[in-house]
């Protein structure tokens, strides 16, 4: 059995659970709980453990999707991420500049601590307050398109959009594998 493990991460409410739910063919394990304190003002429920989703596309091949919990905590989960994930997608809500700091932390962490290929998915692009993708890149510290991870606009509620984002991620992974072989 060949399995690709993809981690979906990002700040609270970026759409991680929705992303996984939209594409997964199994009922996703729902670990959302009523949100407390600060998060509650933002959304009624938040993910407290990992989300999990699966796409079995042949008897011998599957894609596993793991979603990190909302709260920004760099604990053992990140250890797992770095050791086991083949690739990861960082979701950022385009309309919430207050989340760019947390997203920046995650991307800096991955850039320095791991070589796992990544793609940045800008979610909530359909909102009127959404920042343009190019500006989000700068706010995350990617000043030139050179050497920046691929960026895609994602609507986590739409299956085709999620599928497109995952395809970009897989292509990024394939390229990094080809580079590593050279």
């Amino acid at each position, binding site marked *: 059995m060949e399995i*690709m493990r993809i981690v979906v991460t990002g700040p609270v409410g970026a759409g991680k659970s929705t992303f996984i739910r939209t594409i997964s063919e199994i009922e996703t394990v729902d670990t959302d709980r009523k949100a407390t304190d600060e998060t509650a003002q933002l959304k009624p429920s938040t993910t407290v453990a990992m989300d999990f989703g699966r*796409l079995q596309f042949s008897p011998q091949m599957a894609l596993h999707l793991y979603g990190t919990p909302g709260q920004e905590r760099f604990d053992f989960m990140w250890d797992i991420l770095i050791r086991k994930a083949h690739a990861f997608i960082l979701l950022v809500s385009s309309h919430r500049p*207050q989340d760019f700091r947390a997203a920046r932390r995650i991307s*800096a962490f991955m850039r320095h601590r791991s070589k796992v290929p990544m793609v940045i998915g800008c979610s909530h692009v359909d909102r009127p307050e959404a*920042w343009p993708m190019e500006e989000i890149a700068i706010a995350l510290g990617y000043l030139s398109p050179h050497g920046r991870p691929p960026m895609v606009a994602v609507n986590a509620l739409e299956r085709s959009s999620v599928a497109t984002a995952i395809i970009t991620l*897989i292509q990024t992974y394939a390229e990094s594998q080809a580079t590593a072989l050279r």
Partner: protein
Amino acid sequence: MKISGYFSEFSLGEVFRFLEQGQKTGCLSLKSMDESHALPFLPAAPEHYLFFRYGQIVAATTTLNHQGLRQLIEQRGYLHPLTLQRVMNRYPGNMPLGVFLKSQAILDSQQIQLLFKQQVLTPIPHLFAWKEGYFHFDAQHPLPLAEMTGLSASPQVITLAGLRLLRDWTPLMDKLPLADSTIVSLVNEPPSVQLGKIEWQVWEHIDGTTTIQQIAQRLNIAVLEVQKICFRLMVMGMVEEVVNISSPSTSEPAPVNEMDTDRTGLSSSFLNGIVAFLKAKTSG
């Protein structure tokens, strides 16, 4: 382009970094949302406008009537109002007013510098004391040449000055780097800005492996102080924070070893298969 938000979410230093690094041109409007907007050194006004040209600050005003620089010239007594009126009638408006006045030998370089200091360098750092404010950046806004001296200031330098003046850090506490994070330099050369003694000592300890806590220990200063200095360096775009994985068993941050992986490469038939499968899902 829609770039707006609140200081509590995206602080002024972060806005400045964004505009400087993105080399933006346009108008940044700032509206105070607390009582502290009546600060000494800062003109009392409901709104402040900062004009950026390729990421550098070229003018600051409190109205959009193009009269600000003229008023400063009058205030300083450089020219009699009537003389100024006559001069303004000759001003073609196709270059910064300061450049025009200098080219006509009406004002000298030093006077222009003092005007810029009064317009930008002295007041703007005080904006960092606002506890809450709303910002909006308009890249379509034309630059007001009549408000411009022809000089510019780096937002980096203003940020450093502003954060040094800052007494109440409460609104920034949630934005400071974490005590057990490592700080990594983003620049190869030592900073071109003038750092203070302790700032310099902290900078010297930034080697990509030492955590904020360790720097504080070595320098024997409070962790919070190092966090603040590192925040300054961060919003100046000189360093970045890399968090460490907190392991519950030890107080030392767990080092992550990339070799320590149990991930195996995926076959190309697998990758082709999954892409084909997903492509089918992108339609309908």
